């Protein structure tokens, strides 16, 4: 069951609910957080299948979240996807270099969102 548990970190409430709803309907178990720090604390003790995180969070950035999660033995290899409103090519490269497995720009296509998530997490 833990294989399909996905952690969603997004401070924007509608977006966080959108991502959670789509993933749940696709059969994933979703645990969502409105900020980075609480997500990091949860991830220290819970293993998940993948992480979807916004970059600009109110407390710590998505980069820091990933950095802290990588320090935890439990989720040190868990795949993570960055979702952000910025869409510059340089930004994408930067996020991939930082350790994200995939980078998605807002707004997302509801019809392909789950499929793309599944492709990335299962690859």
């Amino acid at each position, binding site marked *: 069951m833990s294989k399909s548990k996905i952690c969603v970190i997004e401070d*924007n409430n*509608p*977006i966080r609910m*959108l991502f959670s*709803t789509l993933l749940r309907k696709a059969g994933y178990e979703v645990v969502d957080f409105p900020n980075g720090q609480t997500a990091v604390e949860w991830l220290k003790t819970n293993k998940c299948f993948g992480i979807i995180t916004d970059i600009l969070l*109110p407390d710590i*950035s998505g980069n820091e979240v990933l950095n802290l999660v990588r320090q935890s033995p439990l989720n040190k290899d868990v795949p993570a996807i960055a979702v952000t*409103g910025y869409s510059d090519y340089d930004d994408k490269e930067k996020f991939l270099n930082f350790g994200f497995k995939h980078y998605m720009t807002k*707004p997302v296509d*509801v019809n392909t969102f789950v499929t793309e998530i599944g492709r990335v997490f299962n690859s």
Partner: protein
Amino acid sequence: MSDEKQTVSYDKILRDAAHKGAGIHSIKKTYPAYLILIILLVLSFFVRDIVSNQIEGELQSEFNKSTTNVISRIETVNLRNLEVLFSMSGLYDLIIDVVRDYFELYATIPTRTYTSISGISYIAQVPKRSLSEFVFYVRSQGYYDFEVQSNNESDLYYLINHSIPYSRNIHRIGFDLAPEKQMFNAIEYARDNNKATSTGFYNTRPDTLGIYLITPIYKYGTEREDLNDRRNNFAGVVAVELNAQKFFETALLNEFLVGTTYTPIDTTIAYKIYDKDENGELFTIYSSTNADLIDSDYKPMIKKDETILIGDREITIRFYTTPTFGGQLTANMPLASLIISILISFAFFGFVYAVVTSRSRALELADRMTRSQRRIVETSKDIIAVMKFDRNWISMNPAAKDIFGVDEIEVIGTSFDDYVYDDENLREFNKILNIKADHEVTERTYLKMKSQTEKFRWVNWSFTISPKDNLIYCIGRDVTIEKLAEEQTMLQQKQLKLAELFAREAIESKNFFMRKMSFQLRNSLTGILGFLQMVTGKIYETEEERDSYVKLAEESSEEIFTFVSDMIEATVIQDKGTVSFESSKLADIYNAAQSHYTMDKDVNHNVKFIIDDDTKKVKVFGNIETITIAMYSAFDILSTGIEKTEIIIQAQENNYERIVEVQILGSANKLVSEMIGMYKLNSENTIEALKYDKDDILLKISKINAYFNIMGAKLTVDSLGVEDGNLITFRIPFNKV
């Protein structure tokens, strides 16, 4: 000092110098040369006397040699004649009866050999009573024509018996010499004393001056011890008759082998030989060929009388030096030495005179140079001055009037500090004076100086610090115009730089807004589009679920409305076109800024930083590099112009305003306080306000403000009062987009 203040024209200096040049030859300066000349002239006469004495001595020696030579020659001939006499006398001692042949045999050779001998005769003493016997006896020896030639009326005859050479004296055989007083006396003297003697010089023959050398002859074998014996046994005398002229010529002249011409042996002296007559008067018996000088007015260099014996006759020789004696050069040597000494004296005088006057000329030249240099100093537009290490002026040129606006005499004795414009420039000067060196060093700097006529003057100083002299030599050039032009240029550059920054700020702000708007729209549209797609795609199971999707899409739409209504609000950092969203502890930013500041700050700055642990833990989110630079600049600004500063950093989160507020408090700083006031007063036109800027404080504040504007932060600067310190506050927003 009053002398220095005189206005002296350059022409006057030259005239004075020329006048001083005439004084070079004054006796006051050249008296050593004259003194030396006098001494040398006196020495010249001494030299002449020494040379004269030396030459005189040498000449005297030479003269003595010449006279000795004459005397020696005469004595030689005299001895030779005496030998002849004694030889003939000895004949009578050996033979009982010296007959004519014997006499001729012995006497012929000397008379032939020595031309000065006119004859060698045997003169017999013949009493009148024995005259006939004597005549008989003589005739028996072959003198057949012998006749007594005498008018002698006394009882005693001295008749010439033999006389050789016979040919020249035949007429004298039988001649009675008794009437000839000198001969008579000489014969009797010889007889009575049994001693050879001589007559004086007299005319032994008519017109012929001569002298007889005679020796007594006693009867063979008879006693001659006492006078009676000598008189009773006396037989006659042997007489050698000398021709005076020939005698002396033979002795004193060199006879050529050919002919009979005689040449004097020595022409450097003249002499006359005298005998005394019966009255004791001298009369000349021989003169050298150049003896005419003796009777003239000629005054010989040396003269002397010598006496010698001819036989036992004492005769006198008077010697004179001739004009050629010693040579002309020798004669003139004292005079020549005097002239040479005088010439040397004058030459040395000239040398000393030249040395003395050249020294005076050198001093004169140095004096001229000194005057010229002084003229340069007096007319220079640059300050040329000297101060002691206590900073008090001890010398100043008139340029002080142009630069400080006060007469140089008023400057002397005052402190350098009195003329420095402000504390900042005084600190700059102090840095130079703080240089410790054991040798002379020269430092240059620009200082703003006070002026009575202007607000200030910029002076380019050259300070030569001489520990050896314990003085500071100062040259200062008024560079106010150049410095103001330079400041104006720098101001324009700073204004241009700030204008560029502001322009960039505007562009960056616009770019940032566009990016932020794009980001915000994308964020909100994600919700709208996502939920609308779920509705249109019928991805819902109940009506309630569908309505909730619509409700969430509406919520996102309201978010867009809110954003559009407040689109001016800036939130996150955008630096140089590159998005850099970072969160960092203030401790890290502080450490970086403090580290850079410590490296860059002036060594004389003593800055104490105070930051508490809570402040260090505060997190800020933004462009870390920009915040670090801002903090560094804040440290720099607050410590500008003072040597000791305390900087307190405090930070706290303001959740109500959603910002992190960082406060940086510096110690009291008059300059910074003044500049903060200036910044606030000109906040609407910071570029124009840069002309009032000091130490770039306004520029630095403006730069931080511009950077903060770009990243949406705020900068405020406040002076808590000149005595209470200055505060710089950063207001950095939370990361809330």
